[in-house]
């Protein structure tokens, strides 16, 4: 088992982790101090000050208008439309025009309703949160509500990525064109997650406040502001806010989850219809992660329970008895191993799946117990500037598509200065036994904390980690290595990872990334 004590100390203050080469993380004083490639993913900066969040969190613009005396039934109808039964009851009990018995009756019903609701929320305390807080609580982004970059998504096949900013606009950056389209939509608010559709050039699914948006951004179009007609709106009553989405790796289905809905939705996006997969217990679904081979799905709930669905007959197995809720999880590239972390614990667990699911009797073919593979408890490192403590709970994890590097975003402690959030990177090894080996820490500019990270899905020369920082910077950290799992051309007949191989030659033989001679 690995622990942070085995890690090399983080780079000195003011230094920025630039890349990994020859098994070592190299740091420098600025992003410009190493040789550029032919097309580097742009290192973008979105200063927090230039972005204006939505100032009005409530749904209606009621408060902006003068009070207007409607008839009672009109007010009741409006209350019913806006906030359902409880709103209607409240309206009736507060009005003076109705008979006294009706007022008293509705007050009683309202009290009863609240009592029942309080019982419900005492079981699932997260239901009392406002929807914005819900997103902040369950998002994979650290400190989501105050983050300049709220979501980030690499395209699975090309050098293209989408960024959601604090003002809920999405920008798309492409290696092959200079236009960066900006996507805005009326219902595109509180974006919690984004994902590009696999095996498709243009579709981008966005998890919004009360719906799912699927944008179709024509890659050849020169328009910088695609109209909202390019977006499909998928919504289901009671399914909001959507905090997590996952595309099926073969591009046919989309899953969405909301922490207040016990059902997760399986969407047929083209047909715009959905199948709710309901399971009582858990109080909702917070996180979805589809195994890269498409056979299993991890679904975490707000309570101490998560499920693993197999995708042939859509049966699931429960994993209760955790200390807290499952905070994050990621799959190995072949879908046989799941790493996850639990809130309140400072370790990484692993689950290994053996058989192909569904073949014998529709079971997920999973193991009976999870094993601890890494210990992330707080460790003190001494740097020239003083001692620094690293470790603690995990916010999110990312595993590179070849299964060689695992990046772990540690939460840190916002109260103290010497315990910042940090990204720890492990090397992973699968044979003879599964093992995590220390690689190093990734540090940004001084004062910048990591918020969100993702690996490039098909980086030719190793792995490329994209990190969004608290100061609005998006940087890319390449890890140069030769994969042991990847067959060398000519040695074996057919490569197993065609995407990563074709990447180089797709662009007419030009190498996107060359090895650095440092």
């Amino acid at each position, binding site marked *: 088992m690995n622990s942070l004590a085995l890690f090399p100390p983080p780079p000195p203050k003011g230094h920025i982790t630039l890349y990994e080469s020859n098994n070592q993380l190299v740091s420098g004083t600025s992003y410009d101090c190493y040789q550029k490639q032919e097309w580097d993913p742009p290192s973008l900066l979105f200063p927090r000050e230039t972005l204006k969040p939505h100032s009005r969190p409530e749904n209606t613009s009621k408060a902006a208008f003068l009070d207007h005396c409607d008839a009672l039934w009109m007010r009741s109808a409006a209350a019913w439309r806006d906030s359902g039964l409880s709103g209607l009851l409240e309206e009736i009990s507060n009005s003076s025009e109705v008979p006294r018995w009706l007022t008293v009756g509705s007050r009683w019903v309202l009290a009863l309703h609240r009592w029942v609701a309080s019982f419900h929320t005492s079981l699932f305390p997260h239901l009392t949160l406002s929807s914005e807080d819900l997103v902040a609580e369950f998002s994979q982004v650290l400190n989501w509500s105050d983050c300049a970059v709220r979501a980030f998504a690499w*395209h699975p*096949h*090309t050098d293209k990525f989408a960024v959601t900013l604090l003002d809920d606009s999405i920008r798309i950056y492409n290696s092959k064109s200079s236009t960066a389209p900006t996507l805005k939509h009326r219902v595109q608010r509180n974006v919690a997650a984004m994902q590009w559709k696999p*095996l*498709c*050039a243009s579709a981008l699914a966005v998890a919004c406040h009360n719906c799912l948006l699927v944008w179709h951004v024509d*890659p*050849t179009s020169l328009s910088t502001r695609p109209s909202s007609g390019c977006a499909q709106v998928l919504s289901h009553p009671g399914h909001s806010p959507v905090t997590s989405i996952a595309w099926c790796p*073969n*591009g*046919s*289905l989309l899953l969405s989850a909301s922490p207040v809905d016990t059902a997760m939705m*399986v969407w*047929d*996006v*083209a*047909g*715009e*219809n959905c*199948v*709710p997969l*309901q399971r009582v217990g858990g109080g909702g679904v917070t996180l979805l992660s589809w195994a890269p081979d*498409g*056979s299993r799905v991890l679904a975490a709930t707000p309570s101490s329970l998560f499920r693993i669905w197999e*995708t*042939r*007959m*859509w*049966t699931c197995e429960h994993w209760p008895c955790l200390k807290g809720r499952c905070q994050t999880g990621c799959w190995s590239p072949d879908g046989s191993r799941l790493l996850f972390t639990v809130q309140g614990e400072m370790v990484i667990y692993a689950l290994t799946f053996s058989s*192909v699911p*569904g073949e014998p009797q*529709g079971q997920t073919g999973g193991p009976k117990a999870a094993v601890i593979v890494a210990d992330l408890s707080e460790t003190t490192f001494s740097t020239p500037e003083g001692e620094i403590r690293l470790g603690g709970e995990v916010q999110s994890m990312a595993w590179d598509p070849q299964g060689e590097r695992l990046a772990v975003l540690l939460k840190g402690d916002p109260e103290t200065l010497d315990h910042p959030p940090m990204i720890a990177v492990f090397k992973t090894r699968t044979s003879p036994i599964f093992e995590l080996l220390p690689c190093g820490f990734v540090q940004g500019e001084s004062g910048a904390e990591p918020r969100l990270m993702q690996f490039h899905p098909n980086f030719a020369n190793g792995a490329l980690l994209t990190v969004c920082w608290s100061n609005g910077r998006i940087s890319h950290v390449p890890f140069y290595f030769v994969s042991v799992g990847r067959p060398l051309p000519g040695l074996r007949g*057919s490569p*197993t990872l*065609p*995407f990563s*191989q*074709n990447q180089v*030659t*797709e662009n007419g033989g030009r190498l996107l990334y060359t090895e650095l001679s440092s």
Partner: protein
Amino acid sequence: MLPSAPNHWFVRKVIYWRWAASVAWSLLLLPVCTALFVLLSRVSLLHPIGWISESFGLLCGSYVIFSLVLLFGVLLVVGFFNLEYYTAVPSIPCTKIALLGKVLHPRQCIHMLVHCMLGMLVAWCTAAMIGGRYRTLSCPCAVEEGAAPAACLNELHLFFLLAGGFVGYSYSLLGLLNNVNYVSFKIIQRHKYLWFRSSLLAVVRYSAVRALYAVRNFCIFYYFLGYIPRTWICSTLGLLRDSSLHRLDSLAGLLDLPLLYHLWLSCCFLLLTWHVSVLLFRIFVSEAYSFPVQSSFSEDTSQCLPKVISEKEPMILKFLGLQDLAVLAHNSPCRRQEVFSLSQPGGHPHNWNAICTECLALLGELTQRLVLYQEVLSSNGRSWPPSCGSDHKSTSSETSENSGTEELSHTPRVRAGLKTPASSLFRAPVGGAGGTLPFTPDLDSPFSPAVTRRMAPDPSSPWHGSVQSPHLMRRGPKLWTSSAESPPGCVLPESPAAVPSPPAGAQKPSFLSLWFQNRQEQVKGFLAKRVLIMYLFNKLPEASSQALFADSQMHIWALQGLSHLVAASFTEDKFGVVQITLPRILSTMLMLQEAVDRHFKLPHASSKPMRSTCCLEDSTFKMLRFGLRSALKTALYRITGTFGQHLHAVQMSAEHRKRLQLFMDYKE
């Protein structure tokens, strides 16, 4: 009255058993529903113990037992109609008149009549089970002292019976309009019990709401027309009217809350039991079936996947076969191995060849259908001599391929030039912007016989049946247009089919045919001015586009199955059987892609239809064209993503290579 191909092994061995299981389950659920009904029918919150004990006593009573037996019979008949009327391809009427024809079709009339009677029967049962004042049709009159006792009509009972008939009728009618008999296939597979459990609540809610509407409509109906059946029954059975009671076709009589509650409950009960049986039937029939890929016994070969997907009848078999193909191609490596395997003596890839040929034929047929539709639409419904049209089919497959898309823009002009001025004169008020006008082409339009004839498969054309050669397939989209421009004399001389005489006839039509044509146009112009005719023959928006893709679930599965198999062949196909057909597969898909792209540029094609959210009013067929478009793109991306660079070695035309390059660059 039995489903199509009743003696087919699949119908006998699978469909009948599935139907029987679904009926058995709905019969098992019936006592539960009945108990709930009895419990709710005499609800009294003030005396809960008395209420429950009374209900339980009633449940064992003779009326309930007898009603239950009757209701079993009713459900059996309903189940039989489910089996008889189900369809995997929805029928979509394109005009109001077609819709009317669908409603008045004898088959549908039988359905309505039977359901009407079944509804009455159920209503009688519910009236008997509720008991009290509803139970019998006649009751002793409340007569004053001394008069002879006489039988009076119990209007409440009549009211119930009529309501049952009304609800049965509206069930049948709405079922027709909402395509309740359409068995759709789900996007994911789950166990039957889970499907049932997750849809049960929605069905209960749907039945309750429908019952509410039915009660409202029936009350309106009875208020205005209720006296007719009442007087008729009174006079036939010699019953008197009790004048001491309110008549039910008055406001005071109808505003009887217990009566309305009981009526609603009965309607709810009726609809719920029927809807549950439909739901169960759908779930059972659409369950995936695993066909063997190959069999070692020759008598079982007709049950193997390659044979199954090539059969025309029954339709459900083809659907289930293609669904199984998509499933096995996606996630069953050992069955994929069987597809790629060679036959033992001889070493031919029979399995793969059969599957691939059938899938390509399906896709090619869809391409053709789309091209024809666009062709007809672009000519704006102008019919040219049918002899010419059919000849185009046979000749144009030989015309040179590179006389390509640019000709499409010329064709209408050229064709107009062929016409006489008189005919275009008459056409002037009719023509114009396409789409909404009455005589735009349409599968069901009675005014374009030539068009409908062209839409139907022509047995004389080489396109009839499955297409064998990729060479022919590749030229598909350019048919019918190219030869219209190329002068008839200079069709490729080496082709024996290019007999120049029919085109010559087209060039100089005889006087008689010209006159006939003019008359036809005149009649059209005359009819087009009548509002009612306009209304009836007006095309429903986008219905023709939906009808075009009505069975596209098959094509979606064929695309998924093919693309997964091709992608898997990259690593799993040891003998290279897929490589041989790769050019054909790619060109077929690219041609379909082109046709679909063009179709979506038509008006109405890319707008999203309204969808109902209920589980029974399945409207997934309305969105099938979008599903097909995305499945097609995904399939092409899957192949290009897997093969990548190697696709440059595949032989294909320059145009297709250009299109494929877009896919390889992720620019489509």
